[in-house]
């Protein structure tokens, strides 16, 4: 269930979706996503396939890709008429996230540049000692799109490269402002408020900047 689609199954799905064309530009992708999220039900494979089929063109998203020296940034691109949030995350060398959940929402993660390592965890079990054990890992390559929701587990996302930055496109539906971060050694969790480094290409410095990442 949790995988990115290979090109042949993506192509097969495309042929079935006569109404929806492969998006050429980021603008096209956003328009298509608005259409796909018009109704209340989400076809996960369809969204994943559409996101994967957009071939990343840096000049289209560069204005959203604002990096911070110290940690990864979240840059809001589109609010999806309230149905979803679309944002771009910028990861410097070595930057990584905490282990976190997705507050009962769908989460799609597509690589626009560079690579990200995703480590999956089961929800912590109080009876188990020795902390949270990882279940699996994968390295996401450029243009691949991964999917997760709370029923599939928790994850940590990291840019493990010491020489290359990474940029990823995230879609969350429905949108959410808080999530839980987990301490890997103990399973203890905290609720954290999620903030944006920029919105629609403009830096938003007055949101909270103190990091609450357990990484």
């Amino acid at each position: 269930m949790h995988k990115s689609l290979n090109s042949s199954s993506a192509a097969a799905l495309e042929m079935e979706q006569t109404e929806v064309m492969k998006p050429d530009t980021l603008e096209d992708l956003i328009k298509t996503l608005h259409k796909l999220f018009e109704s209340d039900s989400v076809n996960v494979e369809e969204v994943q396939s559409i996101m994967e089929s957009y071939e990343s063109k840096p000049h289209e998203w560069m204005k959203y890709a604002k990096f911070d020296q110290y940690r990864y940034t979240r840059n809001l691109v589109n609010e999806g008429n309230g149905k979803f949030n679309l944002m771009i995350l910028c990861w410097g060398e070595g930057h990584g996230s905490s282990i976190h959940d997705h507050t009962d929402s769908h989460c799609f993660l597509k690589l626009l540049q560079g690579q990200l390592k995703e480590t999956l965890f089961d929800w912590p079990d109080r009876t188990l000692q020795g902390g949270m054990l990882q279940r699996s890992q994968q390295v996401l390559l450029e243009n691949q799109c991964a999917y997760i929701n709370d029923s599939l587990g928790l994850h940590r996302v990291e840019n493990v490269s010491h020489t290359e930055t990474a940029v990823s496109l995230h879609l969350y539906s429905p949108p959410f402002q808080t999530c839980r971060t987990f301490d890997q050694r103990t399973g203890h969790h905290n609720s954290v408020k999620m903030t944006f480094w920029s919105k629609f290409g403009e830096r938003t410095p007055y949101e909270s900047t103190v990091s609450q990442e357990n990484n």
Partner: protein
Amino acid sequence: MEGYEGASSSESVLDLSRLNLNNNSLDTVSEKRRKDTKQLYLCYNRMTVLPESISLFSNLEFLDISNNTLSVICEDITRLTKLKTLIAKNNRLNVFSLPKHFGSLQLEVLNLSGNRFEEMPSQCLQLLQKLLISSFFLLFFDEQTSHLELLYLGGNQISSIPAELANLPCLSYLVLCDNRIQSVPPQLNRLHSLRSLSLHNNLLTYLPREILSLVHLQELSLRGNPLVVRFIKDMTYDPPSLLELAGRTVKSKNLPYSHKDLPSHLVNYLDIASKCPNPKCAGVYFDSCVRHIKFVDFCGKYRLPLMHYLCSPECTSPCSSNPQSDADSDEDNSVPADRLQRVLLG
């Protein structure tokens, strides 16, 4: 990580990346273009040597030569008096690749990550604000690095952090992830400007209590370290030697001493006494002490193990209770109240 800011016109930016260029290709750039260029991108080409013709770009401020197969940077680069940023990652450079007078460049940002350095190139440390480097084993610091704000040493084979690293008063971002570090020297609390410390994927079992005094520290990464989760009940305690007992008495009673009274090795011994952190104890210790782990919420992390050194088993850590207790309180009474609150809430 190094974006260039300040280019006012696109004529000053020359992008020659991904063009399959070889060592002679720079000769084809016109003289006017060379004089106008302030930012030059030569990444993802096939250059093995940075050619002498680079010195003809006399107004160059930013040079990116990453992802070639460079093994030599020519001496002529030192004629680029305005060069501030040099990015040379993912090449084949080592200490012998850099020209002798490389240190005369007024560089602020130097990125040598992904090369083949086994030693820190000492000839490049003047005036630097940012240094990124991987693949080396030795560290070398002196006053010349005092401007450094960013030091990236991730992905090396470093097994211990030299205390000299603390001599970097401007350092705000220190990256030591993906190494083999077993302990953090308490002297790092002298890095007054430190804002972000990256220690993930090392061999740390605890952190020094002194880390709490880094008041500007907001980010701290520790994943992938074998940090202890439970207070270790059996701490072996070697009783103090006669020398130590005598030293403790001299220090705690404030008995004056000097080179006139004592041989110099004893004066030096007395000078290195450490104060017991228990505020109710005025004692000191030398080599004989009890190690005690306290768990403190800090920097968004839950129950980080911080190591205290106490002068004896009867001494208690600056905290309530029973040092044998498994359920260590998260409070640390010697930390000022406002700092404690910030620490606990992350």
